[in-house]
């Protein structure tokens, strides 16, 4: 739905890095290099950012109640 605040496995704070990660990858940079740059070292954290799908943008246009 929305980026997880922390890595599911180790608890490192990741949410603050996601929008920069997304922007740079969409601009054509190599995802691996961007993750290195952002200081996301462990593979648990890397998969958390890499595999996230931001569905909230699609959902938030509907009224909840």
């Amino acid at each position, binding site marked *: *739905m929305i980026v997880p605040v922390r890595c599911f496995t180790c608890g490192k704070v990741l949410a603050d890095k996601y929008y920069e990660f997304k922007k740079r990858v969409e601009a054509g940079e190599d995802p691996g290099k961007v993750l290195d740059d952002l200081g996301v070292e462990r593979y648990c954290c890397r998969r958390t950012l890499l595999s996230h799908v931001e569905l*909230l943008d699609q959902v*938030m246009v509907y009224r909840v109640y």
Partner: protein
Amino acid sequence: MEPKFQILEKKEDSIKFIVEGIDVTFANALRRTILSEVPTFAVDEVEFFENDSALFDEIIAHRLALIPLKTPVDRFSLDALELDDHVVTLSLEAEGPGIVYSGDLKSDDEDVKPTNPNIPIVKLAEKQRLSFNAYARLGRGKDHAKWQPGFVYYKYLTKIHVSKDVPDWKELKELAEKRKLPVEEKEDEIVITTTSAFYLPRKFEKYVGGGIEEEVVPNTFVFTVETNGELPVEEIVSIALKILMRKSDRFISELHKVASD
């Protein structure tokens, strides 16, 4: 043997050090004390007044809890076995469109506030409103992971002996140097000291036990401690050691009581 400390690397949010003269039981006790006993502030209760966002109250409350909050070391006795009962209120009022960040939270205590202002809490569409009061308390990692001060791990310090009979041993030397591991070259072998994880490339696996041997340096551990920002790293380690000491003291005095009955 008196334990010896050697700091290998110190960054703003992490520290790496070698401890010599302790055994695994103590190393693990230190690790577990850091993870489950060092207290920090975290949001524990949220009162919602308005939430039109697409995320449920519970999800937002959960996200708020995971935001690291600066914990003032000098104001609270963090190494005590009893926690101070102090509540900090973080309030927020926002209207869409836009992203609500941790930096938008208003704290009633200047010393206790989000360490990182860029954590997105929720996205709001046009006219959606969000307003709540969040109450932060001191707590420990053993009750909920949101109160963990950071992350810690250790490994045995080992020395990898690579005989010069192993073809391509130079490749291993280069690899170790690239990883910034100390390499000592002797007449007939090289010795790699693994101050951080070192994995042998697959092509060298067949020499393990033959030309390549791993020697565990007894009673020596390489610790890495990371902080989420709540507390400085050195404080995390020293608070953990003090708590461990206090608990051991209490254990001994309880034992004395039992013995004297």
